[in-house]
């Protein structure tokens, strides 16, 4: 089957060598900074920085091309929806109005709206490359170790680790069940009427969920027998100590966070206004 999910890529680059915990902290602070700011200048700088990070990570385009297409479709739909529902949102935010062209009814294209939607587009463009990069350069087992390291309870970290471990298994189960159901004429596509479709999806979900519940019983019994959860702490096979580059990465992100927050809020508004 063709890859339709993002997965870890095993290359040797500076970004791959950073510890999972450092990357997690970097990504979390990065996302929050990008979420808060609507300052175009900050967003542009962050965007360039994320492109640079992508460049040095050696990740191949075909590893994430399919996700990129999905994101682009979603992205375009979202922008159309924003314009359809609120064509003058930009005017409301920036407080001025410069018309470009009148389309029909209440739909007038304004420079403010274009600028507002450009900023939203930039926000995506800032967060998405870093998210992709984080997912593709962090080993799943190291990821759970790093969740524990940044302060999450190890039991929750272990849940995440279990989820990542069982996604491929459950996908295989789902495919087996749904193919054998289809072989018996059970269809869940548009060709069936809605009530029939609902009935058919239940025929597929039922065995999947009942076997999963059985699996939960089995795994939890096995973990119980091995004494999971008896101690306050646990060690992780894939945990690594911080190296020099990890401290540098955390230093960089701290600097970025402080600078964007300061530039965004020093004039008292989340938005950078070019119309004043």
């Amino acid at each position, binding site marked *: 089957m063709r890859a339709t999910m993002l997965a870890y890529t095993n290359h040797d680059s500076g970004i791959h060598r950073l510890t999972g915990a450092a990357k997690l902290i970097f990504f979390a602070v990065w996302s929050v900074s990008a979420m808060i700011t609507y300052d175009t200048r900050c967003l542009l700088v962050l965007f360039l920085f994320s492109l640079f990070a992508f460049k040095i990570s050696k990740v191949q385009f075909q590893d994430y091309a399919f996700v990129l297409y999905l994101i682009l479709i979603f992205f375009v739909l979202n922008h159309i929806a924003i314009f359809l529902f609120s064509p003058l949102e930009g005017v409301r935010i920036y407080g001025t109005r410069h018309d470009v062209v009148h389309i029909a009814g209440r739909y007038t294209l304004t420079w403010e709206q274009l600028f507002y939607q450009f900023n939203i587009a930039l926000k995506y463009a800032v967060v*998405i490359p870093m998210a992709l990069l984080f997912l593709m350069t962090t080993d799943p087992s190291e990821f759970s170790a790093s969740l524990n390291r940044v302060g999450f309870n190890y039991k929750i970290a272990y849940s995440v680790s279990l989820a990542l471990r069982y996604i491929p298994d459950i996908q295989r189960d789902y495919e087996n069940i749904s193919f054998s159901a289809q072989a018996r004429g059970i269809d869940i*596509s548009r060709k069936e009427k809605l009530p029939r479709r609902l009935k058919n999806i239940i025929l597929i979900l039922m065995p999947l969920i009942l076997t999963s519940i059985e699996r939960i019983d089995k795994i939890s019994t096995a973990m119980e027998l091995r004494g999971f*959860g008896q101690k306050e702490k646990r060690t992780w096979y894939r945990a690594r100590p911080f190296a020099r580059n990890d401290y540098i990465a955390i230093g960089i992100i701290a600097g970025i966070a402080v600078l964007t927050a300061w530039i965004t809020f020093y004039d008292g508004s989340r938005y950078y206004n070019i119309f004043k």
Partner: protein
Amino acid sequence: MAGRKALSIKTIVAIGIGSALFVILGRFGSIPSGIPNTNIETTYALLALFALLYGPAAGLLIGLIGHTLKDAILYGSPWFSWVIASAIAGLIIGLLTRTIAIHDGEFGKKEIIRFNLAQIAANAVAWFIAAPLLDIAIYAEPANKVFTQGLIAGAANMVAAGVIGTLLAIAYAKTRTKQGSLTKEA
């Protein structure tokens, strides 16, 4: 320690497997509803069922972890406002269905009504209120757009949890042995 009791081993495993199921059903398990651009997401039937089976902590964390992983793996970046809304939905369903003893095979008419009232209340809070407000707060999107989206998503999730979730719960209850089901032979 109270924290240890709240997260039993079974709950931890249920969160892990439940989140994995959430990702897979999010990828393959949405069925077109007939209304353009609106799918019935079977993930929300799963979330309701697991919240009913394993309690509010499981509901909250499956919503949180499952939705974050699903968004991250399929779209490359989590949409945090809706992730939080999923977690809220799971938590509320878990809280409101705590007294249903489904593990003892009890899932008759009374329990079905209670389960459905719980899921309708939970989905209403999560999608009609929490998701749009968080969309506005985090992403500064236009209010009427996000409230319309919330209404559609919430209604679709209620249908998913109500129809598919209920039927799955009934099927699960049938696999359990009822308490006091043994009779003494004379």
